[in-house]
């Protein structure tokens, strides 16, 4: 599944990142293969989503989250 499909409250692990404009920025921010992510919530209008990783919170759009493959831990 992709990060986009993960529900609020789920803890997932990054499997791979699809190529995109944001890929290297995401990786620099610590979103690499093996990183454990907790899905916090979606914004009130459904998009973007907020996640917690490496002791900080990050928000990203669902379209970008869709390019991150994850598995449930």
């Amino acid at each position, binding site marked *: 599944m992709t990060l986009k499909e993960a529900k609020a409250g789920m803890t997932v692990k990054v499997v791979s990142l699809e190529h995109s*404009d*944001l*890929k*290297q*920025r*995401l*990786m*620099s*921010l*610590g979103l*690499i*293969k093996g*990183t454990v992510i907790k899905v*916090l*919530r979606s*914004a*009130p*209008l*459904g*998009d*973007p989503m*907020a996640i917690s990783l*490496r*002791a*900080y*919170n*990050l*928000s*990203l*759009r669902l379209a*970008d989250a869709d390019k991150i493959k994850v598995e449930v831990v």
Partner: protein
Amino acid sequence: MAVLAVALTGNPNTGKSTIFNELTGARQKIGNWPGVTVDKKVGYTNYRERAISVVDLPGTYSVDARSPEEKIVLDYLSQEKPDIVVDVVDASNMERNLFLTIQLLEKRIALILDLNMMDEAQKQGYKINVKKLGEMLGMPVVETVGRSKQSTKKLLDVFTATVMSDYKNSELIELHISKVNDILEKTIDKEEAEEKIIALRYELIDQIISSTVVRPTATTSVSEKIDRVLANSFIALPLLLVLVYAVFQITFTWIGQPLADGIDDFIGDVLTPWASDGLAALGVADWLQSLVVDGIIAGVGSVLTFVPLIFTLFFCLSFLDGTGYMARVAFIMDPIMRRAGLSGKGVMPLIMGFGCGVPAIMGAKALDSEKDRMISILVTPFLTCGAKLPIMALFAALFFPDNAADVVFCMYIVGVVMAICMAKLLNVTTFKDEKATFLLELPPYRLPAMKNVLLETWDKGKGYLIKAGTIIFAMSVLIWVLSNYNFAGPTDDMGESILASLGSAVSVLFTFHGFANWENGAAIITGILAKESVVSTIGVLYGVTDISTAKDAEAATENAVKLAGSMGGFTALSALSFMVFSQLYTPCITALGTIKKETGKWKWVAFAAIYTFVAAWIVSLLVYQIGSLLGY
């Protein structure tokens, strides 16, 4: 001894600015880095008879030269070679923060690691082996708590006692560097190499963290609990509206406006009579008296009355920004902004546009992509800035006395709708090839340091003061000259003045708008110099003083009767059309100057000046013509 050059670097949201402000206080200079629109902050201090300069480099997550900020940090550290490099790290968020640290060490830039906000980290239950951390990196480590005299002194002690060349990368780091070089040699694909190196850095970080940091067992943080209300549920949006409303109330009703009224009273009741009497007593020529009192004091004074509003608004916005709430605003608003092709981060500069377009245009530099920045800059002028508000308030009070507030509110809406439409249009035409992105840290909520908020407020607000002292001063003199002289010499009849000639030339454009007389044409011209001038020009030209300063309802009505009588050209409908035009047309000279500064191109200045005029002309024409058809 030479000045000790210190450079502060680090991620955003690490308290770096707080440390900078604590170190240097008000002794700061804020300029621009050459060629780019990024703030350059330099401050000075003395410690134990040593002169110290501190550069606050832009906060970045990495130094890959992907953004102007990252390039500045990298160039400054590797070319200017400051005596002391401080890497400010949030102690409770070391994993991500160390990424930048490792990158700097890879470039063999020796640094002092400042574990900041140690108090917060300890409160959360983090235990950090500082000595071990220093050994693993090979660099000195200092613990600080941001806003404290003790921490500031500690840092200054370290700065003055440390010689960076004494420090070399640890073996661990050097081993890491050799692995990085290995990848660079063996991997042909550049992207693949970079991704491998990023993974390698996090491997090293994980190794360092696991042997130096004991993490608390996961609990729900206070920030997370706040976010469950402010960023999560259905009440997030109404709450955001309430907060924006509160900011406007504070600015325009509770604090800003009373202060503005105070200044207005002072200028009207104290300064003007004093200057008139004083100049008369000195036997100064009549024309000079008129220039000083009617021209300069009236013109500059009308701008000064806006200063409290501007400062109050910036104070509120800086405060909200310091709490971390502005990141949530971006989070909540992103889907709405995206419809117009912008990112959620664009909300904040645009909100500022309701105060003054100048800082709003400057604020656009905080956005991620060139496209976001350009569109934000180009649509900001449509919003109702503080200087347009008096125009709206005046005309609404005169021509729509029964529902003035609603009409003013509608003008705000007209501005917002226009901004959204134009953003959309620019998005699919001029900037269709570039993508807007959104990736935003949601920092923990914090109570902002008052010193930071005040310094930021001052920094942003002082531009307005400078404007009052320079351009408005010059314009006041110019308008006075234009309205008191014609090509033959001085004239007492303003209808014969140069301004009248210019005004009637311009007013031809508005033949089908219902307000084509030279007074309005003149007001429109002066409005390009400064929007404040529209009201003052109309006041002067229609021969009504105290136009915007009526103290009570009775005085206001009296003015209204006077004006409606003298403003023979206006009907309610043409007044509405004039309001819409004033709301949308060409931004003031200061805003255009800021656009030049931020975009670097005259092309965009010309574009911004012309397309807003055309848009305003069309929309106000539609208002008048459709209104006429409907029988108003």
